[in-house]
């Protein structure tokens, strides 16, 4: 923990306090954020492919929609699992409190799921690409706030000084772009030509680069803005509890994928690109988990 300026003089030691309440949002919330990133990220990527490589999209419309539906449901399932009273979830719709990012997010995610099913209907039942593409534009527009609302929720956790809306919003968008492009390369890369794969890899590399810069900015400059942030970041510095996990995440999610993408471009290797995608997806979970855990380690009293 950061040394407070008066600690040396007072030598103050807490001798009785029952630490409340430890880790409140556990790994379930990490899965929630990770799955949502993929669920909205693949929609962003599908939109890009339709605009840039329309002749290659073909069946991807339906397949990507299914992937998004699956991952958004994983996100919703883990959100529900994290509630201590999951059977009261309906209260969000019948007693909504719209100052809460949780409420706004739940309503938007519900609308998002409805639109995804509409996309599935257009692509699978109606086989109407025109209607699909028109609807997709609205789905993409909604996918942006659905991606961002978790940043709003984190910033409403005013006790956790580390989470600030501007940085977290950027992180959420970059996470969606990173995981969306990685998932597309990994699962649908074989159905796309090298140029389309290159475009996806460019997005993957750039979002990894920007995310890494944001984390490093917090890492270096965070302690200068608030005492609590300095104290929280001590958990990922030196022999902090999450130091190893933090750096494993940074290497897996950002640094190694960037290097591998350069390597794959030089060698025109889709196999290396897929390895970069796997590392990015796994690393993103680790990065998000560390960032979720460390502010919860700080005693509030």
């Amino acid at each position, binding site marked *: *923990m*950061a040394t*407070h300026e*008066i*600690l040396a003089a*007072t*030598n*103050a*030691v*807490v*001798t*009785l*306090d*029952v*630490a*409340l*309440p*430890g*880790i*409140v*949002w*556990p790994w*379930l919330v990490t899965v929630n954020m990770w799955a949502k990133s993929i669920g909205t990220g693949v929609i962003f990527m599908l939109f890009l492919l339709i605009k840039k490589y329309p002749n290659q999209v073909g069946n991807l419309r339906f397949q990507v929609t299914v992937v998004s539906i699956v991952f958004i449901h994983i996100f919703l399932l883990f959100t529900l*699992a*994290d*509630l*201590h*009273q*999951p059977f*009261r*979830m309906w*209260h*969000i719709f019948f*007693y*909504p*409190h719209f*100052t*809460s*990012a*949780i*409420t706004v997010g*739940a309503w938007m995610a519900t609308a998002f799921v409805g639109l995804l099913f509409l996309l599935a209907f257009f692509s699978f039942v109606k086989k109407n690409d025109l209607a699909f593409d028109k609807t997709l534009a609205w789905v993409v527009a909604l996918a942006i706030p659905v991606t961002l609302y978790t940043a709003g*929720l984190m910033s*409403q*956790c*005013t*006790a*956790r000084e580390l989470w600030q809306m501007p940085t977290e919003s950027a992180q959420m968008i970059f996470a969606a772009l990173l995981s969306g492009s990685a998932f597309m390369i990994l699962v649908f890369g074989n159905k796309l030509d090298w140029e389309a794969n290159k475009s996806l890899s460019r997005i993957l590399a750039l979002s990894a680069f920007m995310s890494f810069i944001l984390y490093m900015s917090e890492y270096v400059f965070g302690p200068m803005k608030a*005492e*609590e942030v300095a*104290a929280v970041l001590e958990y990922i510095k030196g022999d902090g509890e999450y130091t190893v996990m933090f750096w494993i995440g940074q290497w897996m999610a950002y640094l190694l994928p960037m290097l591998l993408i350069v390597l794959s471009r030089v060698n025109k290797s889709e196999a290396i690109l897929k390895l970069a995608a796997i590392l990015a997806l796994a690393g993103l979970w680790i990065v998000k988990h560390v960032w979720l855990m460390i502010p*919860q380690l*700080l*005693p*509030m*009293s």
Partner: protein
Amino acid sequence: MQLGFLVDLHLCMGCKGCEIACKVENEVPLSTWRLRVKYVDVGTFPETKRTFTPLRCNHCENAPCERICPVSALHYLDNGIVNIDKERCIGCAGCVMACPYGAIYIDPQTQTADKCTYCAHRVASSMMPACVVACPVQANIFGDLDDPKSNISKYIMKNQGGVQVRKPEKGTNPHHFYVGGGNVNLNPLASHRIDGHSLFNKITTLPVGGHH
């Protein structure tokens, strides 16, 4: 009416009478506390002293817990108390994450959020909160901040320079004040937490939610 609390730390002797009274009055389960007294030892032997700080919900004017609650389970009463409706709470723990004072917890028996309500049920019957009644030295002063003749208003007036709140930088505008406190009492980062230095080392905790 705006109800508020003030604790005169000059008077508090760490007897924990308030803590027990609160537990009994509100049937607070094992391993959780609506109100607790923190001990911090200061100095180096032989120049040492022990400080006592009762900690409870601050009933903030700009309460982050109320704002983040998705179902308005946390809500303001007309008298300024931030109350909780446990029947409506969905147990998302957003309030626990939002409270800068660590004053909210998940009740292991009901699996809902819970916290100090300034004994709103007693106040509604014109009684003082249980902790106020139990305090043997009247260190807890409770009353209407809007009434200049109330004990709490007079106390604040008398001790103007020495009245503090916890974490004022958070902008929550707490309605819970301290007199006679220092950084060590009110700032959690101003003291070490060293393993083995706690007077109670083996605290029984009840499972919450099943996944923690």
